[in-house]
């Protein structure tokens, strides 16, 4: 029982961040129908930039966060302007592959500036240490991380639901032609989406950097988050959150209970095999929009 609860807490903590990264994919997918691999690269960039500001330049924490967000927004605008805008209305695979290129590009940039060394924030960002609640010991970083993730996600969901721009984004997602037809500025919506998404991704990167250490390998989390996105359904924030948490828990469980059965590295294997099984039952994930098939 104690072990079970402990692993659930651990799973939730890593799952919260998967959820956040998953949400950053969903934001872009929701308005542009593009699956932006580049967000995995943004994790790395975010973590390193924050480290650069906070540790190397010893700037105050708020200024560091602002600088990181500003850089994320700048990158988002550049990506959107240079590589995504010319591709509006083109076959869907082309922009997806371009985002793949962007992911590698960002990785290259990170390698160029920071040489791929693993760094850490130390005490500078979220407090270290542990809270003891009963028999559970909760690492403070992970609890804070979880809370921040949930806050960001709640903000986003209400934005989509209640604002005019949110409605515009939903229409753009359904059909670019319709949106343009209605005079919705598709380009601006794309830009907003990229900015939001990149901001969310760098927040994810900062938190991950705090927990796992800042390094190039952070983008593996981006990959696992993909499993969460699809499990939850490509268009659903709620789904991404639930799926992210679930994937976190399943991963921990698999390592603990299947470790004996399946030796070797299974952190990537488990989420995707799980995803495959889930999709066989629900082909559009938990809350994904089911394609309306009419003849």
């Amino acid at each position, binding site marked *: 029982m104690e072990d079970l609860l402990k692993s659930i807490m651990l799973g939730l903590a890593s799952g919260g961040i998967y959820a956040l990264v998953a949400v950053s994919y969903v934001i872009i997918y929701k308005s542009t129908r593009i699956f932006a691999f580049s967000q995995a690269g943004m994790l790395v960039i975010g973590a390193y930039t924050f480290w650069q500001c906070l540790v190397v330049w010893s700037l105050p924490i708020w200024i560091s966060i602002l600088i990181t967000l500003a850089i994320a927004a700048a990158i988002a605008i550049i990506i959107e302007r*240079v590589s995504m805008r010319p591709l509006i209305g083109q076959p869907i695979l082309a922009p997806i592959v371009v985002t793949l290129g962007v992911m590698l590009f960002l990785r290259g940039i990170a390698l160029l500036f920071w040489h791929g060394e693993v760094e850490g924030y130390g005490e500078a960002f979220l407090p270290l240490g542990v809270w003891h609640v009963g028999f559970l010991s909760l690492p403070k970083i992970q609890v804070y991380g979880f809370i921040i993730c949930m806050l960001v996600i709640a903000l986003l969901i209400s934005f989509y639901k209640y604002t005019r721009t949110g409605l515009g984004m939903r229409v753009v997602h359904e059909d670019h032609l319709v949106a343009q037809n209605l005079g919705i500025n598709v380009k601006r919506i794309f830009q907003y989406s990229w900015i939001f998404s990149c901001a969310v991704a760098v927040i994810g990167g900062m938190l991950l950097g705090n927990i796992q250490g800042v390094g190039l390998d952070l983008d593996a989390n981006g990959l696992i988050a993909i499993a969460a996105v699809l499990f939850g359904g490509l268009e659903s924030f709620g789904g991404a959150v639930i799926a992210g948490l679930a994937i976190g828990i399943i991963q921990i469980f698999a390592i603990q209970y299947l470790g004996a059965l399946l030796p070797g590295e299974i952190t990537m294997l488990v989420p995707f095999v799980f995803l495959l099984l889930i999709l066989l039952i629900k082909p559009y994930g938990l809350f994904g929009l089911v394609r309306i098939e009419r003849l």
Partner: protein
Amino acid sequence: MTINVDRPCGTFDSNYYQAMEIFRTPLRKFLMIAFIVLLYAIAFILDDYIISILIVFCAFSIGMTGLQIITGYAGQISLGHAAFMGVGMYTMAVFQEHLGFNFWFALPLAGLVPMIIGMLFGVPAVRIKGLYLAFASLAAHFVIVYAINNWRSVTNGTDGMYLHRPGVLLGIDFMIDKYYYILVLTVTVIMIYFAKNLSRTRLGRAFVAVRDNDIAAEVMGINIAHTKVLAFGIGCFYAGIAGAVGGGYYEYVNVEWFTLTDSIWYLGFLVVGGLGSIFGAIAGAVVWKSLDELSTLVTPITEALLGGMAFYASAAFSLVIYSLIVIVVLVLEPRGINHRWQIIKRSYRLHPFPY
């Protein structure tokens, strides 16, 4: 009135067989034959370095054609293609090592085993569609890599395995690279010819039907479950053959050779080449491997320029350049190289009147 610009002007079919030809004019047929002869001939002219590149081009052209069948023709996105290439390599190695098969017997098996595995992973495509399928197919990659890594008694785990090229046949020693190149080239030409045939016959049309409108295809008498699974099967067969002949060149195979990045780039360069045509597949493979080659060429230059920090810098530079080229190509021509090629041909045919 619509003028047909997709074929050379002045060509008319006088019977149905002509309408089914691959090449419409004697000139084009001659050019193609001349090109293939040239490919054979250069084996005796060029040095081993270029030949090694050409072998890689050939192998990946086969593999890319396989992915073209799955993704370009049948419209099922697969993100685990490199892994099936790996299965081909390992099948070759396992049958040679454990069962003592020679190259010639192991080669078809190296196609068939991935085909069967591919069909298994193709079954979900019956229910799962689009991007969902793409990422579900990542599972194939992870499962295959996991199995190879952990089934040590058969696959030697992470240590890799040795393959053998065929022995001397009819006095041709395949241990010499240029003869092995001729073997690979022959396999490539045959496989591509088969793929072309596939695309213009019954199953090929069924593939496109499923890609363009799967609901209608089902209602119009095409069994889409069969068709999708077959598409995965044939595509993976191609991947397996590609792996077998490619791995045969190095006579060694390692699980590091088909990473997730490779699987993803398979799809990426298919798009760069252009979906839905054999030419696009070959173009994609050639561009991909040329870039790979280019980035290894860049390394010594950056090292010379940057000195001390060269290791990171050169790795980073090749990444940056590589990805930039992909981005630029796709932003300029999102439908791939093949599309641009078609437009060029079209405007050539219509010259001097642009429409």
